[in-house]
């Protein structure tokens, strides 16, 4: 099991209702379904991924996240997942609002653009970072909203979203003490467990 998925699974209550936004081939939901017996729905737009979800026995709905989630009732799920999809959304901040409307808890993972490799790439070459992990050129990348750990922390503060837990791992999904100490510099993938904060007075 990939360590990041294991981290996410720890935050999911057995038998709970889980909505996965941009669920890919459904492997995370399949894992949660078999290990935690969750009731799952995944949203996906890629046809190949949708077929894989069906093969994986995962409930999947063809739906474009950029058109919003107004078809989902408030508090109709226990947890909403957004794994490695945040950076590809037109309005990530609005989707996060919607996530925490649909469920009390959200789990967000994204590539951390504040990672030292990105910083050095940009500083030394003066060009947008391209790597095995993020292989696209600036003009054809689906990732239109990169952010850093610090950026996401700031968004949560601004929106009064409570961060229950934050972990960073490398591209092999491994973490260590140094990453814990300097997450925005060393972490390649950020994993957030968030919940609705108290409304601002």
């Amino acid at each position, binding site marked *: 099991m990939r360590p990041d998925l294991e981290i996410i699974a720890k935050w999911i209550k057995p038998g709970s209702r889980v909505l996965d936004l941009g669920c890919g081939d459904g492997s995370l939901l399949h894992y949660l379904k078999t290990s935690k017996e969750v009731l799952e*729905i995944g949203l996906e737009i890629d046809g190949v991924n949708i077929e894989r*979800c*069906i093969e994986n*026995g995962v*409930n*999947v709905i*063809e739906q474009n996240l950029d058109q919003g989630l107004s*078809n*989902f*009732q408030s508090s109709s799920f226990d947890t909403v997942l957004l794994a490695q999809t945040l950076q590809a959304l037109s309005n990530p901040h609005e989707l996060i609002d919607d996530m925490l409307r649909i469920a009390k808890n959200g789990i967000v993972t994204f590539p951390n653009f504040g990672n030292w490799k990105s910083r050095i790439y940009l500083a030394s070459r003066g060009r947008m970072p391209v790597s095995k992990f993020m292989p696209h050129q600036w003009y054809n990348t689906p990732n239109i909203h990169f952010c850093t750990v610090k950026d996401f922390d700031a968004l949560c503060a601004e929106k009064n979203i409570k961060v229950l837990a934050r972990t960073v791992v490398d591209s092999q999904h491994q973490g260590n003490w140094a990453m814990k100490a300097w997450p925005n510099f060393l972490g390649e993938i950020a994993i957030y467990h968030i919940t609705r904060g108290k409304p601002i007075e």
Partner: protein
Amino acid sequence: MSNSIPADSVGLVKPQVHHFDEPLTLRSGKVLPAFDLVMESYGELNANKSNAILICHALSGDHHAAGIHSVDDPKPGWWDACIGPGKAIDTNLFFVVSLNNLGGCAGSTGPTSINPQTKKHFGPDFPVVTVRDWAKSQLMLMGRLGIKKWAAVVGGSLGGMQVLRWAISYPDRLRHAICIAAAPKLSAQNIAFNEVARHSITSDPNFHEGRYLEQGTYPKQGLMLARMVGHITYLSDSAMRAKFGKTVTDFENEGTNFGRDLRSGNLSFGFNVDFQVESYLHYQGERFSENFDANTYLLMTKALDYFDPSVDFDGDLSKAFANSDCKFMLMSFSTDWRFPPERSREIVNDLLKAGRQVTYLEIEADAGHDAFLMPIPRYVNAFSKYLGRVHKEISAEQA
């Protein structure tokens, strides 16, 4: 078996008739004291009878969904694209049951049957049947076949509405509800088209208030016109262009309409058939009018118009699904303007609201509403994979 039968065909099939002596109380309050249902089946029922799939037909369909009736039969069943060994509904894995609904004209009791009380054709006296009545009669057939739970109930269009009715009325009698190119209820536009079709039939001088069989005739013109109108709504604009035009530029260069019949090369400047699409519609209407009963057509369109399972739940369809524990699979087609993807999404959203397990796909297809009858790769693949999942489930339970 003849060499001419393809390997992925269910081959020669023979319909069977089941007679029911138990009275069936219809939604209208009327009672059918006894009735026949004609059905076909494909594939083998397994030992614990868990691999049965019910196929529900649409407006003009019948029990002959797959295979052929004789080796000389050039036309296989209406859903042969999807039912057969190795096909989406794989008859190597499933036992597939397909029936002709009550009120039909292909062998089940309907307007062309003899009314035992009058010894004449039922004709217009056959009671109006609804989707709910069909599901009820299908449940009786299920009992006759000794099946406790369908692995899946499957249907497109009006067939998909029967699937929804099953999920609402008999949720513990099916594992999966597969509803294709359907709608939660008809739109005013849908009903309007149906009314044009009905009016063309009833205003035909040969209709004789529905007693045309007693007069030895039938409302051919009216039925033709009804089918022509219906047929237009089954095809998309793009499908018609593709079928009746050369290329778009060919026609644009000549500055003429799509559908122009270029074979003749000139226009008649009269009211003859100048365009291929005209002769196509005439042909479709003609063929249909010779094979379909006008009273059945009226009944089927009424069943469509009356379909709205939310009526018992203050107009809230999500409440209708409150006990529908089966899993749902819905598919729609991009150019379907009879029951467009938005209508399927309405159903999906009400299922989500009810907390149901749903899978939904929106298939890019040019063919319009008729796409559900065609072997469109993405559609057939998803369909096949979903039923693979269903088969895995029943196999796991058996083990």
